[in-house]
């Protein structure tokens, strides 16, 4: 009874951990709630199994905790997406291991009845293990892609579909026959499935994939909860699962794509537009220097900064903040506009700006600020491309057609900081580069911004 109550309190703590995130001021408190929750969950488990083996398990926790703390304190905020993907893979693998444990020693988890292991437990054991395995290998691939170590490869859709249906058949076979080797094969194939599901997905879709894997890790936890008849795991898994699902939905809406499109048709979006950008060599764009840009910025009355992944790779956020401060001292109104899919994971840009101590009141979401571009003097675009591309509004043949964009073209002057004139991840040329009011500042975003600061 004590154990059940402790589990219940832990579940409430987890809900508070998420609820705390509804405002930046109280978010830390939520995080502490989460820590209390997980400690209570462990204490409750120790109460229920006795402390006879506590020594070994505490050693295991210490080893894992040491590794985890080392990684988490050292990781830079730019590398956050790959770290989160890497951590998802660990949850997946842990779920697989627990499912195997339950499969080999069902009596330990009290899931054996008069007629052998409960059928319901078998279904969920298989499901938990399969989802866990997909989460593991999928996250490993996502990690390698985000870290730039693996470029991705095309996998025909029918292979995925075939493998998925085969895994489902195996699951049914396992539940009816209870053969352990089928369970092992099922898990092994799920590992393969996870890898080939994520391998063909492109860089622009990574925010969706990272949040989708987040959701999977939740469902895997839930599956294990069903197997072990543990409410805490079911509740936590369901909450994490729905959180990841909502994030994927928001990201998909930010790109005007459906989740199925992202998962199955990812390769097609790129190919159709490749011929479009090479033909327009006649277009010219205006290149500017840092001094020109500084002059324009100084004479502006309001500036909107639009950060993208380029800001993360060049670590330009601190220079941006410094520039913003100088401009604000001169009486210029500086704000930051963040597109939902900017960066490689949901909220990535916000964290980077917060790292540079930009006040979150100056940071606006797409809907809040889009109307203000028309009245602002300068839009300062740092390494963002597709999220500003007007082709999304009028070019029905474009692969990004229908995606909500930041309407930077409406500003009096657009300053584009880019490494090269290359296309963005969607592979679509941006007509804004050639517009009358656009000035391109080619080069490293951090260096260019620092030059502007000097010129100011």
């Amino acid at each position, binding site marked *: 009874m004590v154990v059940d109550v402790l589990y219940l309190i832990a579940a409430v703590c987890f809900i508070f951990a998420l609820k705390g995130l509804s405002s930046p001021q109280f978010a*830390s408190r939520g*995080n502490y709630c989460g820590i209390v929750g997980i400690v209570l969950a*462990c204490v409750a488990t120790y109460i229920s199994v006795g402390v006879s083996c506590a020594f*070994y398990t505490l050693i295991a926790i210490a080893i894992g905790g040491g590794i985890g703390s080392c990684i988490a304190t050292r990781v830079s905020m730019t590398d956050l997406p790959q770290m*989160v993907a890497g951590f998802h893979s660990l949850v997946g693998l842990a779920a697989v291991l627990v499912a195997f*444990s339950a499969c080999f020693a069902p009596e330990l988890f009290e899931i054996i009845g008069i007629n052998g292991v409960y059928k*319901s437990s078998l279904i969920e054991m298989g499901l938990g293990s399969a989802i866990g395995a997909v989460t593991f290998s999928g996250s490993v691939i996502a990690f390698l892609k985000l870290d730039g170590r693996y470029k991705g490869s095309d996998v025909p859709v029918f292979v995925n579909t075939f493998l998925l249906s085969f895994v489902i058949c195996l699951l049914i076979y396992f539940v009816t026959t209870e053969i352990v080797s089928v369970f092992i094969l099922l898990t092994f194939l799920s590992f393969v499935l996870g890898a080939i599901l994520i391998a063909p997905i492109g860089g622009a879709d990574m925010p969706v994939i990272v949040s989708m894997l987040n959701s999977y890790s939740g469902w895997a936890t839930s599956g294990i909860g069903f*197997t072990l008849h543990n409410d805490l795991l*079911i*509740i936590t898994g369901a909450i994490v699962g729905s959180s990841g699902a909502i994030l994927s939905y928001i990201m998909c809406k930010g790109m005007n794509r459906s989740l199925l499109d992202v998962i199955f048709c990812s390769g097609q979006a790129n190919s159709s537009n490749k011929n479009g950008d090479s033909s327009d060599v006649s277009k010219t764009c205006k290149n500017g220097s840092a001094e020109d840009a500084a002059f324009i910025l100084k004479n502006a009355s309001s500036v909107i900064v639009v950060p993208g992944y380029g800001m993360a790779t060049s670590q330009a956020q601190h220079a941006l903040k410094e520039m913003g401060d100088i401009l604000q001292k001169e009486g210029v109104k500086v704000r930051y506009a963040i597109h939902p899919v900017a960066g490689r994971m949901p909220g990535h840009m916000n964290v980077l700006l917060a790292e540079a101590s930009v006040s979150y009141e100056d940071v606006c979401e797409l809907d809040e600020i889009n109307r203000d571009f028309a009245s602002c003097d300068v839009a300062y675009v740092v390494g963002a491309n597709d999220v500003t591309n007007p082709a999304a509004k009028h070019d029905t043949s474009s692969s990004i057609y229908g995606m909500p964009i930041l309407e930077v073209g409406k500003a009096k002057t657009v300053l584009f900081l880019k490494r090269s004139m290359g296309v963005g991840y969607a592979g679509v040329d941006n007509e804004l580069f050639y517009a009358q009011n656009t000035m391109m500042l080619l080069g490293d975003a951090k260096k260019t911004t620092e030059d502007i600061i000097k010129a100011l």
Partner: protein
Amino acid sequence: MDCCFRDFFDHFNDLMFMHMASMAPPECASSGIHGITVFVLACFVGYYVVWRVTPALHAPLMSVTNAISSVVIVGALLAASQNIYGFSKTFGFLAIILASVNIFGGFIVTHRMLDMFRKK
């Protein structure tokens, strides 16, 4: 603060109800349904809580959900705490290590991020 407490009791009542629903012993025929009841209700709780998260905090949201989904450590502790040595215990031991990497890593990185949001 008052509002906070009211929310607390709201959630507490939700969960209490879900918990009561699932208290039935596993051997009873409808135990599967009780588990699913808990699951579905928790999905709704999750849905409403997560929609209220401000978009600026979506990155910390991901890392904190990542940390709390490592509550699967409960299953690992059960597996590792048995007295017979074997596959099951070894797997449990490994799962504890993996899950605790996640718990510590997830909460610490969330803390780092939130610290950045707090300072002006």
